[in-house]
């Protein structure tokens, strides 16, 4: 929840760090309260204050807090892991999804084998269908919600977007 109460006597974490006067229309003030100095420090270290300011202004006002929080999360992850940042967590989770899908496939195979070999199919309900998670030919994961489809793989040869 963005801090609604803003006073010029209490500069926000950004202005305090940047050692400047915190104006009433400070773009950082609602999202970087003085009680959380580390949040702005991390974001500034990785992305830079000017970039964050531009990103905040590009999104709708009601989405700015979420945008700032996601930037703060990514900045903290990049500081902890300078090589992979939050992308490392994505890679781990994708591998876990793949592993679960393989296990589920194996269980489904056993279930079908068990059901057809020993039971009368008319008496028992058919095995439950699988949740549909698609894979492309390269093995990247597409998500059920098309909004979260994996980003494009760059303009040219090297894959700028895929893991």
């Amino acid at each position, binding site marked *: 929840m963005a801090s609604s109460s803003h006073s010029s006597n209490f500069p926000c974490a950004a202005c305090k760090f940047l050692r400047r006067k915190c104006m009433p229309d400070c773009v950082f003030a609602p999202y970087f309260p003085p009680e959380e100095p580390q949040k702005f420090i991390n974001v500034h270290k990785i992305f830079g204050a000017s970039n964050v300011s531009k990103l905040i202004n590009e999104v709708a006002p009601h989405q700015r807090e979420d945008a700032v929080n*996601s930037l703060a999360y990514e900045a903290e992850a990049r500081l902890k892991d300078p090589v992979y940042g939050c992308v*490392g967590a994505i890679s781990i989770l994708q591998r876990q999804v793949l592993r679960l899908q393989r296990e589920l496939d194996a269980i*489904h195979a056993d279930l079908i084998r068990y059901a057809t070999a020993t039971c009368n199919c008319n008496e028992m309900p058919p095995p439950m269908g699988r949740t549909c998670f698609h894979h492309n030919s390269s093995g990247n994961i597409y998500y059920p919600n098309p909004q979260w489809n994996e980003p494009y793989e760059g303009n*040219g040869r090297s894959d700028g977007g895929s893991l």
Partner: protein
Amino acid sequence: MTLKGGATSACAACKYQRRKCIPECLLAPYFPADQTKVFQNAHKLFGVSNIVKILRSLDPSQHAEAMRSIKYQANVRDRFPVYGCLGVIRQLYYQIQMLEEEMHTVLTQLEMYRQHHHHQQQQQQHQHQHQISSMADDVISQLELGMAPSNNALPLFNQVTHQPYTMQNTYSSSDIDSPPKDNVENNSLWIQHLFFDTNNHGTSNNDSPIAIQSQLLVPNSEPLADTQHQVVQDYDEIHPFFDSIDDRQSYIDTKDAEDSSSSEESLKETTQLMVGNVGSKDLKSAAACFSLTSVN
């Protein structure tokens, strides 16, 4: 910025910054001239200086991987300006939750099939035992009537004694690792063994190993023993009946036929003998009663 002569084109970073792309350019290997959009995304999120700062803090061997993740993160942020990679992570968590729920449901379904299979096999077992007992009753009733029991009934008595061992051997040869145990609850059909071999469960993230167990159908020999006992009891009850009729010859002959062979021919011969012996005695006594002169 293109050098004079156009021998080497500047990287996307240097082109954007409108500066000379030196051979030692740190970003040149990762932002070729034709990937301007990728560089713009990275520059928009991180900025050139911050990217160079990150690369300089790392070992050169890690530069490629770091740049790969930076470009990925920037592209995701370009596509999803509000949530960026955090949104991707949340979506993956959601997928994992859905998969785990589905797995739980499928395991429940598998348990249902296992219980149904167990119930079916028990029913078949009971039906088989009932069949045995009914056939035994038929044989006994036939013996009471002095008839030769049917061919297929006699081997049944042999089957009754050997049935438990056959069933145990059948189950021991199936895909079961653990030997059959006396307690039905501890018996298990290890499907887990099958798909643990195909899926290496070694990660620490897997806190709940998937154990699929079903009860092994131990042949319950008690109903069969009861049947045997019942058959023996019935057999004992027949003895006094035959004794009262005093048809010992026929009974003994019949029992001999059972002991020796089950062939119909031997039984027929015995029957003929029985009839022949009885007939001659009766005829003589009858003749003695009705004729004035002795037969002899």
